[in-house]
């Protein structure tokens, strides 16, 4: 490979003293600091960077920027790297993606030979028969031709990325002359500004401009750097604008994170992204050596790369004219300037891995290895589209312009019109001032409305009227297609001929055409292709381009890595004050919702047996706990629970169940009355938050006249259940000021007292396990002391911790159901067996009409206890209960365990009402297909249904 590096250029961004080593398809090559991957390879004489998706045509540099469809390369473990903008780094392993076995000898090129048969949507019309070939062969062949690089999914950078929020008064998208001037104008008017530029340097087209343009850039850059109110991000992209000016910026120049997502609430958004140069459609428009004027100019001026030897320049504008000068200065022989403004035109280009000749419309054929085209612009209106704005086509200028923008969005620079450097700067500056005014007015009103803010002094600034002199709309010839057909979408290998065919088949709206041909669906998402596609459609339908419309540009403006979108891994987990102890003592962690809990400490069955025979302690802190205070608490409870509360005496506890307005069981728990106006409610762990919000809703919107204050105290009270025949004996050693005897402290009571010298504990005599048990709620800062005291004092009683699994066994033996496991999203009160509890004579309770209706019905499933006739058979949870040998479903097992106490399998099950009678033998379908008999029990409790064990 020979060097195409030019002698030093005045505006070059490369550092000739720093050589960077990397590899290209396995071969060692060198580049310079400041090179992009593409410029380094071009400097080494590389022409072919990739093969196209469908026809595997040779492809080279086209735009030399982010949107270049031919420069997606594999770099190390990263697929689809944009070689046109990615800076070269030492040791990079760069390779082509869409070739096999090699870039030179790619067998996919066979597709080219049959290309005429692979017209738009061809795959919809074939491969249908025989069906087994589609299922087994065709599909896998199609997949082999998937474009794109390789994901190395065994390595990960998940979590290495970062995010932050920002609240700039003004965000300027685009750091060209207009954008820089807008940032300065806004900052000087008192606004905080975030200026975002996609390229490594500010300046836009001034970077590769002439001496005067570079001098203007230097001046702007100095001013921007000096302005404290401006934060600059380069190599960064405004990827999306969402409702209420919520703007996403992908920051690429952060020193630590590979990419950082900046989420900005923006006062005024200034859109100044410049223009994207548009390719022309003609035969051979994708051959390496055919490139856009911007690419040629950047190669020469930024990276000092000579793009070819003999050039034809097709120009319709000043950019093309400037390219002629740049090429000549770089020593490229410009053999022909084809000026569209004089009626001349290129007809086609010829070549394979490099351009060989150019055919003109006048019939001449010119030998050349470079064809530079400058045939027009596409306005990158994505951010405006995202704000609901539909830009309007202006045939005189041959491009789209934004119109009727909302207040909070302004445009400047090329997207708004044409101008000299000075005119662009003046327009940008005035735009910045206007943007600042609007955002500062907004800030004033936000400040006035915000409770935490310092109230603004004085009135809001007066609104400025928009007195900006609009930028000109320079006349430009409408050139979209030459007399020949060529590629519209390079990444998708879609030609103008394909589009015309699609329109003829009925896909004659731009959206249908896109879906049928896949035009604009590649990585550039239409940045190069949309307008050309619309132009071809307009041509084929004989319509004006202005009437065709374009597809809507959706976020992101440029692709953004999943890692950056994910950011740091923020996954909140909740830990009780005892969780460290559990983990230090061998507990296996169980993730239950957000909580980390001890599942068991090695042997759940032994833990359960220890509770039945001795005493065990379990950390049940995740149990929802809500402090209720005020004279009207009982009224609130009457409303939210299905049962009665007014009569509950101080020191007593009651079980309550809740249903939603549709009558479905939603939560349950016990609630105790600590004093006349002070109650403590418990809820399920997963339901705690929803119950709290529901209580607030009723108090705020349903009954604002009730005086109740609700305070969630779940984490503040560490809950320890002390369960087992010896539990009273153990607690008596630690509780100093509460009489724990059965007479003084009966079942379903609550007391406040001191436990292990910790005051302000709440002691409940309740039980989920079916044993004598006390639940102690300890202020969490002292919980560990109480837990350890229980173990120490209970050593002689065999006190040991037990985990969630042991508790599941114990509660199932006792027949306690769990909302959400034994009930489901349709379970009403009768299903859960709440019959004795529900009071239908209230005048208001949540879901009252549905409760009344439910008790009129006889077809609701019923929750029953079930025991398999063979005690050694353990049905799976979710095993279906079926009608004999048929497939008719009559219920399902909701909970199932082996009971160590009874030495047999035990279950809870929802069954059809006709099976609910005690003694009914039902058929359980096991996962292995066996159908086993089981018998419905009289009580939910498999053990001690009278509650003798817990009432001692």
């Amino acid at each position: 490979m020979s060097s195409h590096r030019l002698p030093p250029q005045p505006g070059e961004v490369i550092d000739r003293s720093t050589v960077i080593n990397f590899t290209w398809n396995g071969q060692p090559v060198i580049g310079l600091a400041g090179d992009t991957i593409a410029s380094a390879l071009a400097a080494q004489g590389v022409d072919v960077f990739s093969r196209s998706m469908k026809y595997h045509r040779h492809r080279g540099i086209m735009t030399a920027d982010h949107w270049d469809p031919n420069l997606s390369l594999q770099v190390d473990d990263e697929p689809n790297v944009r070689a046109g903008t990615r800076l070269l780094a030492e040791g990079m392993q760069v390779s082509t993606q869409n070739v096999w076995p090699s870039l030179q000898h790619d067998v996919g090129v066979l597709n080219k030979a049959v290309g005429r048969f692979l017209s738009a949507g061809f795959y919809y019309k074939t491969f249908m028969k025989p069906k087994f070939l589609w299922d087994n062969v065709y599909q896998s062949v199609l997949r082999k031709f998937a474009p794109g690089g390789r994901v190395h999914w065994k390595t990960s950078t998940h979590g290495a990325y970062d995010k932050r929020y920002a609240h700039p008064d003004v965000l300027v998208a685009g750091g060209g002359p207009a954008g820089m001037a807008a940032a300065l104008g806004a900052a000087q008017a008192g606004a905080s500004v975030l200026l975002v530029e996609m390229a490594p340097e500010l300046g836009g087209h001034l970077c590769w401009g002439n001496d005067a343009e570079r001098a203007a850039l230097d001046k702007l850059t100095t001013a921007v750097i000096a302005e404290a109110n401006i934060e600059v991000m380069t190599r960064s992209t405004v990827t999306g604008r969402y409702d209420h000016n919520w703007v996403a910026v992908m920051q690429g120049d952060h020193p630590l994170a590979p990419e950082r997502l900046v989420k900005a609430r923006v006062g005024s958004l200034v859109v100044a992204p410049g223009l994207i140069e548009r390719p022309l459609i003609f035969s051979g428009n994708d051959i390496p050596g055919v490139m856009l004027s911007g690419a040629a100019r950047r190669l020469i001026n930024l990276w000092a790369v000579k793009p070819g030897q003999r050039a034809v320049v097709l120009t319709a504008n000043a950019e093309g004219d400037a390219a002629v000068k740049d090429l000549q200065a770089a020593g490229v022989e410009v053999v022909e300037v084809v000026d569209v403004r004089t009626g001349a035109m290129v007809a086609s280009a010829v070549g394979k891995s490099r351009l060989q000749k150019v055919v003109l419309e006048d019939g001449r054929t010119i030998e050349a290895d470079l064809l530079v085209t400058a045939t027009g612009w596409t306005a990158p209106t994505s951010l405006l589209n995202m704000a609901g704005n539909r830009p309007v086509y202006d045939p005189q200028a041959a491009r789209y312009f934004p119109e009727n923008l909302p207040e909070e969005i302004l445009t400047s620079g090329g997207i708004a019109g044409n101008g000299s450097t000075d005119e662009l700067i003046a327009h940008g500056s005035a735009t910045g001032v206007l943007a600042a005014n609007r955002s500062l007015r907004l800030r004033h009103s936000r400040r006035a409305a915000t409770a935490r803010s310092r109230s603004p002094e004085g009135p809001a600034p007066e609104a400025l009227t928009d007195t900006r002199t609009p930028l000109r709309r320079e006349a430009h010839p409408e050139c979209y297609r030459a007399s020949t057909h060529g590629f519209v979408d390079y990444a998708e290998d879609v030609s103008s001929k394909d589009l015309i065919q699609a329109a003829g088949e009925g896909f004659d709206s731009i959206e249908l055409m896109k879906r049928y041909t896949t035009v604009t669906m590649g990585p550039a998402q239409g940045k190069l292709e949309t307008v050309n596609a619309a132009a071809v459609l307009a041509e084929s339908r004989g319509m004006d381009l202005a009437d065709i419309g374009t597809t809507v540009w959706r976020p992101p403006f440029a692709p953004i890595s999943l890692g950056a979108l994910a950011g740091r891994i923020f996954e909140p987990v909740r830990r009780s004050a005892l969780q460290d102890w559990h983990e230090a003592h061998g507990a296996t962690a169980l993730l239950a919702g957000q909580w980390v809990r001890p599942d068991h400490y090695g042997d759940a069955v032994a833990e359960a047996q220890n509770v039945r025979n001795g005493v065990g302690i379990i950390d049940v802190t995740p149990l929802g706990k809500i402090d209720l205070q005020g004279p009207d608490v009982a009224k609130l409870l009457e409303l939210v629970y299905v049962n009665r509360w007014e009569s509950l005496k101080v020191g007593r506890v009651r079980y309550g169940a809740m249903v939603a307005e549709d009558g479905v069981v939603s939560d349950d728990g016990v609630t105790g009355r600590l004093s006349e106006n002070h109650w403590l409610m418990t809820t399920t762990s997963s339901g705690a938050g929803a119950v709290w919000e529901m209580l607030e809703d009723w108090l705020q919107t349903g009954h604002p006249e009730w005086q109740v204050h609700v305070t969630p105290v779940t984490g503040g009270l560490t809950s320890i259940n002390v369960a087992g025949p010896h539990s009273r004996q153990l607690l008596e050693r630690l509780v100093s000021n509460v009489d724990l005897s059965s007479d003084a402290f009966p079942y379903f009571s609550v007391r406040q007292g001191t436990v292990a010298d910790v005051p302000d504990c709440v002691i409940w005599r309740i039980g989920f396990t079916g044993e004598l048990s006390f639940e102690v709620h300890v202020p969490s800062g002292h919980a560990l002391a109480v837990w350890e005291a229980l173990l120490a004092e209970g050593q002689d009683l065999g006190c040991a911790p037990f985990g969630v699994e042991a508790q599941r066994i114990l509660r199932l033996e006792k027949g306690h159901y769990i909302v959400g496991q034994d009930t489901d999203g349709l379970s009403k009160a009768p299903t859960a067996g709440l019959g004795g509890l529900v009071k239908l004579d209230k005048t208001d309770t949540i879901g009252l009409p549905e409760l009344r209706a439910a008790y009129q019905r006889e077809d609701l499933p019923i929750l029953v206890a079930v025991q398999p006739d063979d005690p050694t058979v353990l049905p799976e949870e979710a095993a279906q209960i079926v009608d004999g040998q048929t497939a008719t479903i009559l219920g399902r097992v909701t909970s199932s365990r082996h009971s160590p106490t009874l030495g047999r399998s035990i279950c809870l099950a929802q069954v059809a009402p006709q099976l609910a009678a005690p003694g009914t033998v039902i058929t359980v379908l096991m996962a292995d297909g066996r159908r086993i008999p089981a018998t419905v029990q009289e009580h939910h409790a498999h053990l001690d249904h009278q509650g003798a064990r817990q009432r001692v």
Partner: protein
Amino acid sequence: MIIVPCPHCGPRNSVDLRNCGEVVNRPNPDTATLTEWRTYLYLRENAAGWVSETWYCRAGCRRYFTIERNTVTNEIRDQS
């Protein structure tokens, strides 16, 4: 992420709130017919345009309040 104007906190990012849907009137549960009750439970105007809806300022002041939002544009105006 839209901004919801909480009457107590001021403008807030919607991530800190919960949308509770369009405002519906709860019939008297003691006297409502099942049809009336289920109309309240299930049927919704689901309008395209201005809708009165309830929000809960979950991570902020924890107050429920009503605003009007345009379901086509996401514009919001205070009901006060």
